[in-house]
């Protein structure tokens, strides 16, 4: 029965989560663990409520940078992927740059960027760099993966290279792009956090990761956990957003979004 299946799908993980939280609460109380070592969930939630103004403002800063970086990564990644699809010369020339950008760990680049740029710009650039490559790579793969029979069909009717790109390659690439977007969305957040932590260690910044570093210095561990909780929530929301987008765009026609018939 569908209702029963849905119940199982939600109730089981929710119950497991609640049990885990209760166990955590109990262990902290039973073993009298100090709050600066491991705060109980109840304390974390209380801190979240008390420090809401500060933490929420920081959440907005982090999210703002994440989405701004993601936007630029999408524009840049898609445009470059289309350019690569149209010209093999450009692809061969610039792809190595993109690969180098991808494989160099962002944590090693962040301090350098913080020297050259203002804090918020550096954070933006870091978030952009990690989100850019998956989007570029997946979109380029999608554009190259158009059905060869369909390419023949377009050749048959003497389609121009632009018609082929816009009417065939771009729609073919959509599932791949959305896959890259889901990855890039999460990575943009990570990139922003990494840069913020690097900045925060130098005493600069205003986002959630900065709050974590700041709380660490001040030994305000409950607030650190509260900030961590908000970051997780942000990550989950981003993931759900892009999964829903994927589902809406693909559900009528792509195998990945369709349920199997019983």
């Amino acid at each position, binding site marked *: 029965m569908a209702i029963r299946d849905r119940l199982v799908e939600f109730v089981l993980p929710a119950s497991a989560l609640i049990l885990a939280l209760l166990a955590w609460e109990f262990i902290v109380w039973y073993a009298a663990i100090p709050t600066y070592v491991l705060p109980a969930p109840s304390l974390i939630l209380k801190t979240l409520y008390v420090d809401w103004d500060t933490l929420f403002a920081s959440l907005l800063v982090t999210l703002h940078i994440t989405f701004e970086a993601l936007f630029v990564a999408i524009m840049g990644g898609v445009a470059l992927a289309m350019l690569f699809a149209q010209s093999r010369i450009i692809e061969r020339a610039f792809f190595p740059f993109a690969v180098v950008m991808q494989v160099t760990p962002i944590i090693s680049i962040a301090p350098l960027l913080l020297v050259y740029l203002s804090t918020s710009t550096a954070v933006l650039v870091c978030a952009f760099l990690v989100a850019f490559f998956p989007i570029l790579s997946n979109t380029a793969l999608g554009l190259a993966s158009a*059905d060869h*029979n*369909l390419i023949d069909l377009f050749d048959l009717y003497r389609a121009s290279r632009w018609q082929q790109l816009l009417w065939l390659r771009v729609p073919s690439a*959509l599932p791949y792009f959305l896959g890259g977007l889901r990855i890039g969305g999460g990575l943009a957040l990570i990139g922003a956090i990494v840069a913020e932590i690097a900045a925060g260690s130098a005493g600069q910044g205003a986002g959630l990761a900065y709050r974590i570093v700041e709380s660490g210095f001040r030994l305000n561990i409950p607030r650190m956990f509260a900030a961590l909780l908000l970051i997780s929530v942000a990550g989950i929301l981003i993931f759900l957003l892009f999964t829903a987008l994927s589902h809406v765009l693909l559900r009528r026609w792509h195998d990945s979004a369709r349920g199997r018939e019983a």
Partner: protein
Amino acid sequence: MNETSTTREAVVPLSGAALTPGDALVSLRSVSKTFANSVTALAGLNLDVREGEFLSLLGPSGCGKSTILRLISRLTNPTSGQIEWRSGRPEIGFVFQEPTLMPWATVFSNVFLPLRFRGVSRAKAKKKVQDALDSVGLGKFANAYPRELSGGMKMRVSIARALVLRPPLLLMDEPFAALDEITRLKLNDELVQLKCALGATIVFVTHSVYESVYLSTRIVVMAPRPGRVVAEIPIEAPLPRAEEFRLGAFYAQKCRETSAALHGAMGDKAIS
């Protein structure tokens, strides 16, 4: 490797003196085709496609049947030899072995595609697309997505798309090979009816002796390595043909004849 020619000639519709049935619509003269990997698909091929006929190209794998279709439709160019069109290059419809539909578009959009390439607006094309869908029995499915259709229905959409511009020449590369027997027989009859209604010339690639004898007015049997013609078998019986045709002596005799030629092409001892 993309083999299409880089020059973009306008497609010249059938013009000038009308061809009478039996005139060559297109002639392949001493056409050879060798691929980049040194495989010789065709060697010195001579073949006429006659106006109004249903021509089947029959042969084992690798004898160049699909290559001939690709040469006629200019998806690829010959290594040597000429392809001559008697009266300018007409509009050509092509049906592949897979339905080759755009999965992200509705049935309507898929059949609309050739018209879109010719600059016709969606509104103006509506009637032509609907007519094409009606002619293959899918009039009610304009808003469905390919994923929602059966194999036979998808192939019908592919045929509707190939016919929407009313091409004088229709090329079909084993279009029914992936379908079940029942659907295949049904589509055989529907295809012949469409051919007669539109007055089109059809070049049909197949592996099946029975299909080629039932559908065609002429069968060309080919052999591989290198690809060449080894036999030509006329089927003088009018189209369309009823199911009863399959039960007659004429059909049986032609099947024997064709089968023998095919075995000869494959190097087997002829079964007399």
